[in-house]
């Protein structure tokens, strides 16, 4: 039966998996969002300890999702891996740096004899919390705005300038998505505190901060969305030729009603979770905004890659643009990987099970006192 599965189907299937991983990653960056407020949200060291321990029990999920996202992209669309990572060198290196410093910061911050003091490791958390989501958002924006690269006949990448990806930071559209992702992470971070921390004062401060962070997120998100839908996009003809098409992403959204519904459901979920947490004592806003974030990101990725669209377009050489067809792995590899992907629900199930077990009680000073492993 698997012999009947076409290469085109698998290319679409794997783009959906990539989109799902991207959605989960954006949701899990609530950890980064929380870290970005390490110096501004807590009023005292006790609250900071609560904040750090709340997010410190989850940072590995985000980290692992990022690594898996990279691995899955490599396996399914290796030309993206080689073209983007090799080309936009400095952007990816900056993202990696911010995650390297995060990985040690939780474990080392309060350990005796850590050499550099607690504040240094808190600054590491702040750097990762701010730069991580912002740079990842900015890099993903280039899926819609294009990058300055070309490929030769051996599919080797040449970047058109010496900035190697940093030039993405001077585009307002790229920046707006970067900032939208950063503020969405902060919103999710605040909602996570409201959900999982037991100390009333910190929870109330989180609710107060939620309004400004949500409005800021909305401003940047709407700016990105409106400019995206009104701008031209990178369309792929049947022959594989890439050309600019007016309102391409708007066409994609209306050309794929399911994606439109998915995207709108995501946006509604995000807004509902925020609204419920602002205007009622609800503590479960994270699940609506979190799920909404996942759905909205999946929607954005699908309009970037489906419906004959180049998902990693080249702004300097249109026909070097990457599509899910020309950048993908072979039929055999995608099929082999499909069998592996069937295990993803099992992975999600045990993550959910372990998550519930750890989050059984809300985090309070008292809970931390009885805990052997405290950050």
């Amino acid at each position, binding site marked *: 039966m698997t012999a009947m599965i076409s290469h085109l189907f698998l290319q679409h299937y794997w783009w959906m998996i990539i989109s799902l991983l991207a959605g989960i990653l954006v949701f899990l960056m609530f950890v980064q969002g929380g870290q970005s407020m390490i110096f501004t949200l807590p009023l005292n060291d006790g609250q900071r300890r609560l904040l750090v321990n709340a997010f410190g029990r989850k940072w590995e999920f985000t980290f692992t999702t990022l690594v898996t996202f990279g691995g899955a992209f490599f396996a399914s669309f290796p*030309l993206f891996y080689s073209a983007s990572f090799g080309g936009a060198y400095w952007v990816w290196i900056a993202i990696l740096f911010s995650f390297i*410093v995060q990985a040690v910061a939780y474990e080392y911050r309060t350990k005796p004899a850590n050499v550099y003091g607690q504040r240094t490791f808190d600054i590491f958390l702040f750097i990762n919390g701010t730069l991580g989501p912002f740079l990842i958002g900015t890099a993903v924006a280039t899926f819609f705005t294009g990058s300055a690269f070309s490929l030769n006949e051996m599919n080797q990448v040449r970047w058109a300038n010496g900035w190697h990806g940093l030039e993405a930071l001077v585009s307002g559209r790229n920046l707006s998505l970067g900032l939208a992702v950063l503020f969405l992470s902060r919103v999710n971070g605040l909602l996570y505190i409201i959900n999982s921390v037991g100390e009333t004062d910190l929870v109330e401060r989180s609710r107060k901060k939620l309004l400004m962070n949500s409005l800021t997120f909305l401003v940047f998100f709407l700016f990105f969305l409106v400019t995206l839908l009104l701008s031209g996009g990178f369309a792929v003809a049947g022959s594989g030729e890439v050309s600019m098409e007016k309102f391409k992403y708007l066409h994609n959204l209306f050309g794929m009603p399911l994606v439109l519904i998915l995207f709108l459901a995501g946006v509604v979920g995000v807004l509902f979770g925020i609204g419920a947490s602002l205007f009622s004592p609800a503590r479960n806003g994270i699940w609506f905004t979190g799920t909404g974030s996942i759905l909205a990101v999946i929607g954005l990725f699908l309009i970037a890659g489906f419906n004959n669209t180049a998902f990693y377009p080249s702004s300097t050489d249109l026909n070097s643009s990457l599509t899910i067809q020309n950048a993908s792995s072979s039929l055999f590899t995608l099929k082999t990987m499909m069998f592996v992907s069937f295990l993803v629900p099992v992975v999600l199930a045990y993550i959910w099970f372990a998550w519930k077990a750890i989050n059984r009680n809300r985090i309070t000073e008292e809970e931390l006192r009885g805990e*052997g492993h405290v950050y």
Partner: protein
Amino acid sequence: MIENLDLTLLDWSRAQFALTAIYHWLFVPLTLGLSFIVAIMETIYVRTGDEEWKRMTRFWMTLFGINFAIGVATGIILEFEFGTNWSNYSWFVGDIFGAPLAIEGILAFFLESTFVAVMFFGWNKVSRRFHLVSTWLVAVGANLSALWILVANSWMQNPVGMVFNPDTARNEMTSFWALLFNPVAVGKFLHTISSGFLLASMFVLGISSWYLLKKREEQLAKRSILISGIFGLLSSLMVAYTGDMSTRTIARVQPVKFAALEALSEGKQEAGLTIVGILKDSGRKIGGRSLTEFSLKIEVPGLLSLMTSGDRDAFVPGISDLVNGNEARSIMPVTEKILRGKEAKELLSGYKASKHEKMVQKADSISAVFRDPGFISGNFRYFGYAFIDKPEDVVPNVKLAYYTFHVMVLLGFFFIIMFALALFYLFRGTISARKWFLWLAVWSILLPYVSGELGWALAEAGRQPWIIQDLMPVGAAVTRISPGSVITTFILFAVLFTVLLISEISIMVRQIKLGPKH
């Protein structure tokens, strides 16, 4: 592909990968082994209910956590570096190499990171049994991670299970099982994880010995020595066995690397196995490269021939046979391999030109050649030689390969003796009185780190100039960015990792001095 390559760029890109890999490998083996040691201790606690075993488990788990964090920090860069610094490689083999990396993420990393959270934070939140299962799953997850990355690395040493597609200019997978059960992968996986078990055992033995010397935590120390002694002895025997297995495989699939690690300049029958030897330049050259000879050596006659072929009289090829060829032994000279590689490369250029000019029939006929088994085994397998300028360029640094291998092997035997002695003194009840042994054990903590790094230096530097054996040299694989960018990131990584390492060692030492919580 390799025209106008800036050697500064290549050298710094290699240096950066070496730096990040060396740093990462300072932390991974302890994670691989200590996770099992902790799981064994917790199992005893759950079975006996003895709180002292729980205290021990939590103490070693604290040290595990400190090491685990920096292992994660140094690991993420390696995965992405394949893209950032070796992008041409990433495309050429992404269809094959990416799959193990993705499986590693989906199946192993999530297992490890999910249950490590339960292991650290679940003591008061989940049942004893669930906690124990979580601890075991962390150990399994960590070692599964090692499996997939080693499968990927082994494919680079011995590419199997693929076919070249001229359309996409890359290799494509044809058999996942060939990849997984690659003989290099089997040996490398077992050798690598058992070396991690060994390192962790020495770590536990050394620290426990220090407690005995300081007359602190004697019960914890002796119990820990018991566990690490048994686990370490079994692991070190396994390291020796799998090391032998891996070396035999190298002799078969990477003969030049094998000749280099034995410093065998000229092939011979009844080749002896060098136990200890000191190398010097012999004055003889192949092209511009000096060959080596021993200024001093102790060897067992005929043993190398016996070990590689099961026959004392067997011929073991030397570097000059492998470079210049040896017709009597049916060894092809490198010059011939270069010619064959160039034919394959020119055929690929012809294919691209035909496609460009829309000469469909010609393109189809060339495409068929690339699928022809005769062409694959006769020409394409030497594709990488098309980029080699001089035949002697296929020889790695012989002195580096020889010394890394032999020091590693000698250390391997030393570890077996150490663990055997630890158990002997422990069962005799005299270990606390053997101060010389306890001090030796403390200082020996460093030695498995040395042997592990030497092993990787041999594996990677010993296969130069290849990034994929015979198919792609490093020069063709490197990302073409400015050398200045790579030098900058090299310095950034060197500084950052060193800064983090200093903190890690300082925290670790302090935690050991503080000892377990009461």
